[in-house]
């Protein structure tokens, strides 16, 4: 187990280095820069700006400085805003984190419920209904679902605020928009995982012992049946991050995704690379947690490793 964790951490460092390097060079190789204006600034001004951001140095020196910064999690100053990249992440990430956690909670709760229901009533009405709902969740793009939810629940029924992140109720619609896509996939994974599990011998043993049907399904079955869902958490979170770009735009939430998209338009290199490395670090740690979780859920995997 310890060997696994150390190995994964080493791998994670390599991944982070690759992300940082690729984004550093890709951004600099692209045409156009953050200080291109309609009217070119006087040469002295440009020189000052370049000096401030070390843009006058050879690229490799810039790269070395950048890597040294990344190692300390210091991404320097934004080139457009009077803030450091660290401040931007600290100010905006909490909104995205709340949105993401809430969305994932909705996705997992509803997805697992639908999936277990479908597996339990296999090939009957409940199954078909649950799978149709989950397919709709997968098929409707979030930039359609978001405005439709706003129209119905905010502008039509006046139940919930249409936009902005002020208080718990304003997170309900965006989190539902973001979560429903993953609810669909999680429901389908739970269903197939449960179908596989409920056929296993140890489930028959439990039934033979006289364990109640509810305990068989929710306690014995779900434990193994959830493994595909746990595997999916990494990709789902990765998807939530890119999904947040759309949802934060639709609902006017000042999260990190919104900030990131704005920085793309501004070509704000430090912010772009900084946020990318931040996302990558988060995902590396999350995937490590998922790997550890397997061992906790299924002792057979733990012993094998």
């Amino acid at each position: 187990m310890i060997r696994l964790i150390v190995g994964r951490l080493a791998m994670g460092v390599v991944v982070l280095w690759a992300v940082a390097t690729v984004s550093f060079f890709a951004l600099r190789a692209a045409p156009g820069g953050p200080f291109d204006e309609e009217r070119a600034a006087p040469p002295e001004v440009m020189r000052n700006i370049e000096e401030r951001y070390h843009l006058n140095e050879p690229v490799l020196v810039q790269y070395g400085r950048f890597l040294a910064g990344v190692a300390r999690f210091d991404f320097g100053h934004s080139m457009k805003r009077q803030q450091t990249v660290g401040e931007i992440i600290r100010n905006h990430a909490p909104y995205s984190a709340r949105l993401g956690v809430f969305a994932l909670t909705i996705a997992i709760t509803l997805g697992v419920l639908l999936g277990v229901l479908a597996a339990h009533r296999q090939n009957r009405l409940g199954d078909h209904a649950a799978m149709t709902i989950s397919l709709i969740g997968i098929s409707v793009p979030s930039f359609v679902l978001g405005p439709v939810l706003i129209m119905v629940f905010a502008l039509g029924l006046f139940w919930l605020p249409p936009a902005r992140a002020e208080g718990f109720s304003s997170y309900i619609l965006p989190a539902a928009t973001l979560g429903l896509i993953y609810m669909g996939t999680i429901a389908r994974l739970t269903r197939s995982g449960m179908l596989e599990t409920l056929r296993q011998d140890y489930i028959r043993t439990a039934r033979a012992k006289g364990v109640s049907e509810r305990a068989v399904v929710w306690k014995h079955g779900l434990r193994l049946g959830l493994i595909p869902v746990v595997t999916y958490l990494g990709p789902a979170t990765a998807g939530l991050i890119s999904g947040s770009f759309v949802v934060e735009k639709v609902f006017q939430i000042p999260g990190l995704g919104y900030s990131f998209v704005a920085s793309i338009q501004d070509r704000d290199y430090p912010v772009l690379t900084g946020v990318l490395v931040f996302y990558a670090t988060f995902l590396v740690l999350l995937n490590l947690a998922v790997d550890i979780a397997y061992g906790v859920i299924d002792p057979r995997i733990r012993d094998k490793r």
Partner: protein
Amino acid sequence: MVATTAPARVEAPAGRSLWADAWRRLRRNRMAVGAGVYIAVMLVFCVVGPWIAAAVGGLDATTQDIDHGAQGPSWRHWFGTDPLGRDMLVRTMMGGRLALIVAFTATAVALVVGVTWGSTAGFVGGRTDEAMMRVVDVLYGFPVVVFVIVLMSVLQTKSLVVLFALIGAINWMTMARIVRGQVMSLRHREFVEAARALGAGPGRIVARHLIPNTLGPIIVYATLQLPHVMLTEAFLSFLGLGVQAPEASWGTLVAEGAEKMVVYPWLLIGPAVVMASTIFALNFLGDGLRDALDPQTRKD
């Protein structure tokens, strides 16, 4: 499990009956058949529709009927008109052409990369396999779409080819995993030994003997990839990075419609219903194909 079901796929006469069997199973699945018919109708709608609209109503996607701009559905304009007075029905059809071209091309890219990667890893095995699959694992848990967003915007390209290639380049991982698994389970079988004994090299064995035996899962996941690719394209278009004006795909139409839905709801409803129902049908067909072709994961 593999040993009991797989021989039916391998021996020539039984192999034919696999496809016949699958076809029979697929036909019995009414939802999947309905979805297939719907997709065929949509193809006709998008490919032939604009010509019919031009011949019958004299409508096209670009003519601006300024006097009738931003009007709701009518006998002349079934899906209404946009604020510039362009017919939304024809725009939706033309958008469908583009969306389908993107979907098929990007899926083809993903297919080629995924099948090549997966079959190489599975056939070579050992450390190469481990390293190759590690790359897949890492990419799988990573928001690769974010990279596409950054690349599309910094390259400032309007080229559709780049769009196809990028969308395809981020969607091949599932295919690689599936093909690898299939190849690994097949590579020590007798028919591979026989081919080797007859002097076939590794390239020929993979291309002529192994990949044809994994066609079932490949077809299934290619079908399921199509809706996914369409959604990716729509997502990029919403952020202003996908298909660029004056071209319009379903993604751009829906994104435009979503902005103006409160005032002109028909701008959203027409394209959104057509797009979502097509994606829905593709998913249903993919599921049906999986049940028919891949008895191991079938919902029996």
